[in-house]
């Protein structure tokens, strides 16, 4: 887009204070017609606050909003919608039992005689919109029966149905598979070709570079700069976001593997539905190496990890840690035998969100000295230990008495890692350890995992991110439909791994 195009939307000097923090500090932002403008920043940089102000959910303390050059005040989402601004939240607001068309027209239904819902008119209108913007979606389908990617399209259609010409997408790819993300980008390209303007909130550098025309970077509530995509690189964007050089790829010397600490032999695991999802997996992890298991989500990784951490029984096979047979032992036994486990879902499993951080860091050892004796807790020791660990792992956003739920995702993950690593495990299982984290936090986790390897621990990394696998692993196994279909050295190309992950070269596998 040419420089001369006037902005359809302009935010000037927006400031928003919350008790104790300035979430937005005199932020300027402008959106031109027909562009995708990415808003980039770490978790907690103030992206969501800025957009919630634009969408009428918060009132700014200072600053003004100009729509087509005219100042407007936005005090509720209704006004934002009336002004042609649509927002797609990270968590969809759809009614599962209703159809696509019903959800789209909700609260603005076409009616017959003012009272009766005109279903056919609703469906016709939805179909027209879908065709205009080249969406593939069935207006009759129920929300509960369609994929997450399709649900997101329904949200976008909802905004279009309400005549939005400015669309805000809050971290839209966080819930999508890579394939769905590509489809979303195609849709966005169609939208801007039709003259819409898109604000794309993200903390993922590669997708910002792929879709955005311009990028505005926020850091700690302040605008760092607005730059055009041309000339920007992942490294330069990361530096702007974090405020320092970021190692996107951790530097690591070759490992020096020692004795075998974790041995898995021909393990079979059945999932909750009674299907055998792990079908004879065998591998060894030695001290001082990172073994990565790569694969597309849902190929048995979750159940495999559960089986080697005592959270699920295996139906066949053997698991041993440091030479000791722990097949189907309890989670407690695994913990006592030196297995640390960074679980894939920190909310569901890694943390008790209602507990304080100090209570969370003693989740495995609350009953042991010095944290307890004779059945009584020693809160002084627990809080002192929590304080020490939080400082050591640079956890921000709270102290040892803060509830875990109050922290950002990156800091929550740091707490989990602090707990697991500080127990001095022999084997460290890291399941998707950087899921949902921003670049600064990812760097921290990666560096830490390599350090743990160099300490002589056996590290098992299970990840869906190819880049992560390639950057960390000393050896790579690929899991597909519950079986190991190949072993690769760290120098393998992404293409080759990708093919193996989708079951392509099973013949060449040498597990």
């Amino acid at each position, binding site marked *: 887009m040419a420089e001369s195009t006037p902005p359809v939307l302009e935010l000037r000097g927006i400031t928003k204070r919350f008790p104790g923090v300035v979430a937005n500090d005199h932020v300027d932002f402008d959106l031109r017609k027909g562009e995708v403008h990415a808003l980039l920043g*770490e978790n907690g940089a103030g992206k969501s606050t800025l957009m919630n102000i634009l969408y009428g959910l918060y009132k700014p303390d200072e600053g003004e909003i100009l729509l087509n050059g005219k100042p407007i005040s936005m005090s509720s989402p209704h006004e934002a919608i009336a002004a042609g601004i649509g927002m797609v*939240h990270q968590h969809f607001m759809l009614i599962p039992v209703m159809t696509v068309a019903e959800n789209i027209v909700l609260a603005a239904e076409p009616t017959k005689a003012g009272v009766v819902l005109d279903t056919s008119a609703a469906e016709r209108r939805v179909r027209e919109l879908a065709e205009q913007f080249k969406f593939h979606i069935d207006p009759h389908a129920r929300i509960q029966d369609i994929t997450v990617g399709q649900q997101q399209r329904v949200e976008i259609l909802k905004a279009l149905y309400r005549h939005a010409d400015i669309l805000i997408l809050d971290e839209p790819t966080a819930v999508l598979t890579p394939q769905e993300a590509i489809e979303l980008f195609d849709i966005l390209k169609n939208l801007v070709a039709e003259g819409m303007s898109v604000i794309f909130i993200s903390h993922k550098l590669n997708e910002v570079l792929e879709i955005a025309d311009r990028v505005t970077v926020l850091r700690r509530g302040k605008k760092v700069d607005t730059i055009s995509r041309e000339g920007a690189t992942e490294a330069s964007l990361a530096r702007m976001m974090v405020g320092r050089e970021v190692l996107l790829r951790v530097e690591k010397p070759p490992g020096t593997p020692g004795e075998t600490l974790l041995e898995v032999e021909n393990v079979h695991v059945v999932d909750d539905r009674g299907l055998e999802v792990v079908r004879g997996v065998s591998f060894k992890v030695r001290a001082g190496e990172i073994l990565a298991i790569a694969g597309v989500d849902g190929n048995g990784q979750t159940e495999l990890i559960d089986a080697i951490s005592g959270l699920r029984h295996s139906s066949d096979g053997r698991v041993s840690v440091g030479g000791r047979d722990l097949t189907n032992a*309890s989670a407690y036994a695994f913990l006592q035998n030196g297995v640390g486990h960074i679980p894939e879902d920190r909310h569901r499993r890694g943390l*008790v969100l209602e507990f304080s951080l100090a209570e969370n860091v003693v989740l495995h050892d609350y009953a042991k000295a010095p944290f307890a004796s004779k*059945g009584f807790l020693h809160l002084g020791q627990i809080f002192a230990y929590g304080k020490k660990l939080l400082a050591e792992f640079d956890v921000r*956003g709270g102290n040892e008495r803060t509830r875990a*739920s*109050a922290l*950002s995702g990156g800091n929550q993950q740091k707490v989990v890692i602090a707990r697991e690593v500080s127990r001095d495990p022999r084997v460290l299982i890291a399941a998707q350890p950087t899921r949902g984290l921003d670049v600064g936090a990812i760097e921290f986790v990666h560096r830490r995992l390599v350090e743990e390897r160099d300490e002589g621990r056996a590290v098992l990394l299970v990840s869906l991110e190819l880049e992560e696998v390639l950057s960390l692993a000393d050896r790579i196994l690929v899991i597909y439909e519950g079986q190991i279909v190949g072993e690769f050295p760290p120098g393998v190309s992404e293409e080759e791994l990708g093919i193996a992950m989708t079951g392509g070269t099973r013949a060449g596998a040498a597990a």
Partner: protein
Amino acid sequence: MAGEPPAGGPGDPVPTVAERLAFYQRAGGIVTPLFTVVLAFFAGGLVVLATGHNPLRTYKAVWDGTGLQWFFTFGHYHITIPGTHHHVFFWWNTDTNGLAAYNLTQTAILTTTLICTGLAVAFAFRCGLFNIGGQGQYITGAIVSVWVGSSWAGMAQGLHVFLAIALAMVAGASIAAFAGFLKATVGAHEVITTIMLNWIAYWTGSFLFGRGGPLQNSTDVSVPISNTVTKSGMLPTFWGNPELQALHVGLFISLGALVVFWLTLNRTTLGYQVRAVGFNPEAARYGGISVGRNYVYAMAISGSFAGLGGAIDILGWQYQLGVLDIQVSNIGFIGIAVALLGRNTAVGVGLAALLFGALVNGTSTRGLDSNVFPPQLAGNLTLMIQALVLLFVGADVLILYVWNIRKKLHR
């Protein structure tokens, strides 16, 4: 990280459950239950109005019936210094024998038991279990204590009382732990099993003390009631005429139970486990905590609180247990309302028990002035307000919502 407001801060567009809880505990910890109670009394007042009575006068009469006005009767009183004939001026009510004082002791007796049955529900709640079986566990405790208390006459009083209470707690714990055991092993839902166990306790008691039953009164075979607790099995009383249900030291036992509840939950490893399981069983399991075992422990402790309540009632003032007592008793069920209103905390349960104890006593035909409100309707007023409180406790999300909007407007 700096920048965003702390999660769960007022005005978050879509707070998660955890955030909402965190916020709730910070902002509305005491406000919402108070609001709930006020709302319930207001709605109750409307119904009183609809029956053609004056709600303000009715509530005043209920208040008088609770005996709580005893604390607020100031004036010129004097007390005698023990061992002398000297009188000292005293501004507090010293009339410990009047009607107000009597009503107050009755309120205290009810509060004593409600603390126990409230704790029985609250403890299980903290482990993520809904113990509907407080009533059955209470009856079980009462059965065992009346049996122990009426046997072994001549035992030293301290030992006899201790034995009766301890065995009653073990009995209450056992019947509750059975429900926990079923949940842990075969996944039977505790709401269903505890309700079933309530009926088992009910009919067991009816059989034991019914005419011809093994524990029926040995001297008067025509009455379906137990033997009387012997002198050595009775809890000492310290206020009022023992012939007219005096206040007994069980009050201090149940206040002690509040402390034990708090200590167990917040200062022991068991309490840590129970809370971890209650908040997030998956995380507890991952942490190496046996979820099933804690279901059994938590139910056992819950049941021992209810069993204690049964023992205190029997040894403190009832001294006998009849089939009729078992069949009309609902103090275990009121314990559910006490726990919910008290937010499953020690202080909350104590205050809620006092509220319901006062309410039940204040609206009893004995406590309520029949000139103001017809006695035949009085009992229903208790039930109604109790139900309204439960209803509004469930509405605290709504109250939070209003609170959120208010905060937002203040920005």
